Structures are given as C-alpha cells and as structure tokens.
C-alpha cells in the first residue's frame, strides 16, 4: 500500500470539531462576551474570505497538490473587479464576473502547467504567486481602489435573524461549502478527485481521465478564489492590492487543521471550514480575554499543537 500516507495520521472526521468545541468552551469560561450570537457572527464574517479560499485549496490538496498562489490570485481578482467597476465604469455584476474570470484563468494556468508540463504544484504556484502579486501591484499602481458601487459590497451587508446579525457573505460561504461537500461526496466527479489524490496511477488505469480532473480542480479553485475576492471586497469595502498576503498559509492551515492529508486523497471538506473557524475563534477569543498580541501568537502556537495532539491521543486511546 501507499505507506507514505500511513505516516500522516488521519485526523478523524470528528477530531477538528471536538477541537473547535473545546476551544469555544474554554473561551466561554474566560469571557461572557464570547458566546453571544453577535460575537459568533463576527467570527464567521472574519473567516469568510479564508473559508472560501480554503474550499479551493482543499480541492487541490485532495489531489495531493498545493496552491501557494491562492491569496495573491484573490487579491488580483479583487483589484480587477473593483477597478473595472470604478475606472472603466462597468456595471458591477459584469465587473465582478471579469474579476472571477481572471482568477479562474490563473487557476487554468496553474492547472495546465501541472497537467501538461507535469511541473510540481509547489513550483507552479510559487511562480504564479509572484506573477499575480506583481500584476496586482502594477495594475493597481499599488493604490487601494475605493468608492465602489453599493452593489459590489452587498455581500458584506447583514440581515438579522433572531436578534443576531448575519452577513450575506457568510451565507454565501456556507452555501458554497454545502455545494462542495455534496459534490465531493455524492457525485462521481467528486469521488474521482479523491481517487486521483489517493492513487493517481490506479485511477488512470481504471480509465478515469485523471489529467482532466486535475485541470478541473485547479480551474475550480481559481473560480473559488474569485468568489473569495468578491467577499473580501464586500467585507472591506475596497479593492486592496495588498490583500491576500497571509491567506496562503492561513488557508493551508485551515485545510490541514480540518483533517485533510497533505498527501492527498483523504479528508472532508467541511473540516476545512472547521479549521478556519478554529483559527478565527482563537484570534477572537484571545482578544476578548485581553491577551496582548505577542502572547496571542505564542498561545496560538501552543494551542494549535495541543488541539491536534488531543485529537491524536484520543484516537490512540480508542484504538
């Protein structure tokens, strides 16, 4: 068998959820502001951009790839859609579509390099990371794009359910997760994504067009980064050429915390949402506790290890 994979312990599907609940329980004891609907809604809004990026990232990691370019491609998308809408005066919807088209094209480029020339995804996306960053800076002249039409930031608006404000963008993110989860679980193409990551050669031999699936995954990821760009525009109200710089690592962290194996073929996409939430809850909870920012970093480091270790040890115990 594929012995390599045995090295990465399969973080059980439930493990990340337990870690998240433990973190929530802990913060609830520390601050009575934590477990309010409003605060939790806030955390959701804070993770929505990384959350949507993590969908694309999960797809790629499931195929045993990795995408370092995700954050920068998202930044490019948000600059393109905002500049098109303001400077070119395009209708907002069209401008958004153009932005998403650009990120999708970047996904296509990544995918073609990976499938046609068979370059390692790490190298390809390291290259496109730099390319997307440079284009973003050049095209925007490093200027933040402001004065956006109302329509573009609509996903940042909130509506009220039972006294709690919910952002439309959060609803969009949750919807995308459900669709991705359904597609990966219940459709043939989704299972093929797992199969390609699990054993590319076996999958090819059963006659599944593995290259086309890989390409599709990269294109789809680019599409999700475009949606993330829209959410980021909606959330901040501007097109920010410096966005996305920390999102690469954040998204990969969310995916791995969510239990998806970096070696491909194993994982549940909803875990990535949980992973993103774990990071968001830490940041929020520690601030509520009044932990100063350097100590927050220290504590985050320790807690990330503890969360996964607790999961791992509980697995061992139950074996």
């Amino acid at each position, binding site marked *: 068998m594929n012995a390599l994979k045995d090295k990465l312990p399969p973080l059980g599907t439930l493990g990340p959820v337990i870690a998240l609940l433990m973190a929530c329980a802990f913060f609830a004891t520390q601050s009575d502001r934590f477990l309010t609907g409003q605060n939790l809604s806030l955390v959701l809004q804070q993770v929505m951009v990384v959350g949507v990026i993590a969908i694309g990232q999960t797809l790629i990691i499931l195929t045993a790839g990795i995408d370092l370019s995700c954050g920068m491609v998202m930044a490019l998308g948000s600059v393109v859609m905002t500049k098109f809408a303001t400077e070119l005066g395009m209708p907002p919807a069209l401008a958004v579509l153009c932005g998403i088209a650009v990120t999708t094209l970047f996904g296509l480029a990544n995918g073609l390099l990976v499938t046609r020339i068979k370059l390692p995804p790490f190298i390809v996306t390291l290259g496109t990371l730099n390319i997307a960053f440079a284009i973003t800076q050049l095209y925007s002249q490093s200027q933040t794009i402001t004065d956006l039409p109302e329509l573009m930031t609509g996903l940042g608006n909130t509506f009220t359910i039972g006294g709690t404000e919910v952002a439309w963008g959060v609803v969009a993110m949750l919807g995308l997760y459900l669709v991705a989860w359904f597609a990966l679980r219940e459709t043939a193409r989704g*299972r093929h994504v797992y199969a390609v990551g699990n054993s590319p050669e*076996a999958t090819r031999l059963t006659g599944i067009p593995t290259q086309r699936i890989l390409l599709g995954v990269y294109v789809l990821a680019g599409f999700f980064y475009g949606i993330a760009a829209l959410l980021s525009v909606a959330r901040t109200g501007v097109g920010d050429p410096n966005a996305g710089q920390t999102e690469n690592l954040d998204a990969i962290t969310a995916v791995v915390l969510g239990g998806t194996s970096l070696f491909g073929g194993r994982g549940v996409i909803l875990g990535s949402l949980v992973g993103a939430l774990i990071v968001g809850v830490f940041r929020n909870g520690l601030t509520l506790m009044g932990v100063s920012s350097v100590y927050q970093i220290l504590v985050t480091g320790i807690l990330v290890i503890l969360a996964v270790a607790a999961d791992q040890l509980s697995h061992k115990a139950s074996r």
Partner: protein
Amino acid sequence: MTASSNTAPLVLQAKGLVKRYGQVTALDGADFELRAGEILAVIGDNGAGKSSLIKALSGAVVPDEGEILLDGQPIHFRSPIDARRAGIETVYQDLAVAPAMTIAENLFLGRELRRPGFMGNVLRMLDKKEMLAQSIARMNDLKVGIRSMTQPVETLSGGQRQCVAVARAAAFAQHVVIMDEPTAALGVKEGNMVLELIRRVRDKGLPVVLISHNMPHVFEVADRIHVARLGKRAAVLNPKKISMSDTVAVMTGAMRAEDIPADCLA
C-alpha cells in the same frame, strides 16, 4: 463448452510490439492473437514481458513500435480510457485499486451509477445504495468472506484485495477481459472461484486473456497458451495436446520452438 478453433475470428491482435524502458527492452517485437470466445493463457518467466504486453494492449503504456488491431482494425490506445471505451477491461498485476476508498467505490470507480430522475440527472447524485447492493452480489460470486463493502480497500488482506480487482473487471467488460495474475494471492477456494468466473465470462462470449504462473490453473481453463520469452512470443501451444512439463520446457527455453511437435501448436 470450450469454443475457439483456429478459425475463430481474431478479436485482438498485435504485431511486432516493441517497448523499451531506458536500457531495458521489455518487449522486443512481440506478436499476439486473441480469438473470439477463447481463454488465452499467457505464461512466461519473470520479466519475460507479459505485463508489458498487456499494458500495451490495454493502453496503460504506449508501445514504441508495432501495431495493435481490434476486430481487424488498426487502433491506437493513447490511454486506458481509449481501451475502456473499446470495451477492454483489465486487472493489472499491481492491482490498481485506490487504497483509501471503499470496496464499493473501487468496484464502480469510473463507472459510478447515478440515481434515477432529478437527483441523478440534474444533481448528478450517486446511487450509493444500488452500487452497494451490486457490490455485494459481485463479491459474493467470488465467495470471499468480506464483512463490509464500505471498508477501505487498504484494510483488506492481500487476496481479498485481488478479488476486488477481479470482480471489477469481470463485471464491466464488454469486449475483452485481460487479467494479469489474478489468482496469485488467492487461496485454493478463492482461486477456483476466479477460474470459474473466467469460464463464465468466456461463456458469455467474451474472450479472456489470463496471465498466470500457476500451471494447473492454466491447463484447467486455457483454450490456447501463449508463451512469452525474452520480450517475444516463443510459441502458442494447445493445452489439450502438450504436456505440462513440455510447456515449462518451452517457457524456460529448454525446448526450442522448432522442436515442438506440430500438433501441439495452436
């Protein structure tokens, strides 16, 4: 019913196949002929090029030279997909299963069933229930005592895993079935079940290519025996006429092709 005479039409044919891996020449001008409705055994020493031959026939590798004909028509398989489209199903020696996926998923990998109606046509939802039911039926054919079809293949014993691959090929073949050492890891009972399955497939009218090192198995089911040697076809033998020891002699090179009595050739 042991069909196939020398006059049955050729289903799959290869002429002068050459495949090189760097310095190593795995196939060195190999010929191959599979006739309608027959079980053709392919035997040969380790490294004789048997797996390489069937990989070329099933599109898993593209030969460097030579041509392949399906039903008399030249055909170029650039990938296993092409071969699958042409109805050729293959059990590869290295099993070609996805270890982290369940038995049922592996059985239907690439040929998943969709739900009827809206759910399947529009939402493209899989019919997991039906696939599970059919998996159980298929695996029961082979009488392997596997408890659950939803366990990952990586938790199976070596022989159980092989049964998954065999069941898959037998279930989905339309035109030709190729099996590379399907009984190698199997127990006596399970091995016999697979032989039985091979006969049933042949009786459905599909020709079968069986690669095996197990001479009793070969002599039990084969209609003709293709002997591979040093990347070539050394001879095609008639198991009804030739003895097992002579066959081994041909295979190991102890008996030269010219010395084989003419009536033993097939």
